[in-house]
């Protein structure tokens, strides 16, 4: 899985070279990869089922290979207006992957684009995913995950009751980005590919 993650990350970085080579000084595009840890994968599979219960009569129906994010790539983009451009470039490379955007369930607002599909370049033919998210929101998710969920993957079950607060943070970060871009446009130094 580590090799698959490195392979996919490198392919995505290569695909984005036309963008990353023309970034302005205030702009960034960072590609990160991660392999889901075993305990997180089991927990993610468990959360898919009502009551987080595995049917004891049918253990054969459960497999970690049904998870879409055993290998995941996150592309952090700043400012957010670059995200559409990154999305277009990667769509041309992964046109048969399925769109599964990250939606804020409180506001209905789309927070990130996300796609999953079988990565045919890898021998294991795993289902992998990549997502494109603004840097501020992506880094918030990293901190949240590292501080809360990573030490105890079962704490992911708290997400439904933390939704209102998480949504408020996402909205505040998005408002910051929108205003930042508005000011850049006003000053005539916005991204040329908004």
């Amino acid at each position, binding site marked *: 899985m580590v090799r698959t993650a490195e392979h996919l990350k490198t392919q995505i970085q290569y695909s984005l070279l036309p963008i990353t080579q023309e970034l302005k000084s205030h702009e960034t595009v960072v590609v990160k990869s991660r392999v889901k840890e075993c305990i997180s994968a089991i927990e993610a599979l468990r*959360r898919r*089922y*009502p*009551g*987080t*219960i595995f*049917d*004891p*009569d*049918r253990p054969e129906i459960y497999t970690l290979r049904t998870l879409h994010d055993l290998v995941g790539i996150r592309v952090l983009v700043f400012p957010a207006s670059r995200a559409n451009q990154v999305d277009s470039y990667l769509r041309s490379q992964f046109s048969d992957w399925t769109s599964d955007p990250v939606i804020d*369930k*409180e*506001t209905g607002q789309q927070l990130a684009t996300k796609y999953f599909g079988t990565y045919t370049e890898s021998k294991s033919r795993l289902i992998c995913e990549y997502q494109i998210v603004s840097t501020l929101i992506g880094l918030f998710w990293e901190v949240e995950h590292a501080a809360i969920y990573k030490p105890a993957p079962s704490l992911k*079950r*708290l997400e*439904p*009751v933390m*939704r*209102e607060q998480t*949504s408020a943070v996402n909205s505040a970060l998005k408002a910051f980005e929108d205003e930042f871009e508005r000011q850049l446009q006003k000053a005539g130094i916005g991204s040329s590919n908004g």
Partner: protein
Amino acid sequence: MPRQTEKIHLLDDAGYSYNFDRMMYINREAKKAFSVEFIDDNPETEIRSKIQEPTDEDDWRFYTNSDLSEGTRRELKRVLQ
């Protein structure tokens, strides 16, 4: 106020509490449990109607997006005892 939060307040007011292990809103007295997905995907009116729905007092009623197998239902009842 966001709609999802309104549904949670509706459940809170009806005596349901979030069960961290099961990821369900549960009322042991009413013997009813709602999955988080069911709450997300159904309107407030539907949740309200399910809360008010009369039940067989001896058996649990589970509100989920997918049908529960007999094994899952049995296991859920066991862990909720």
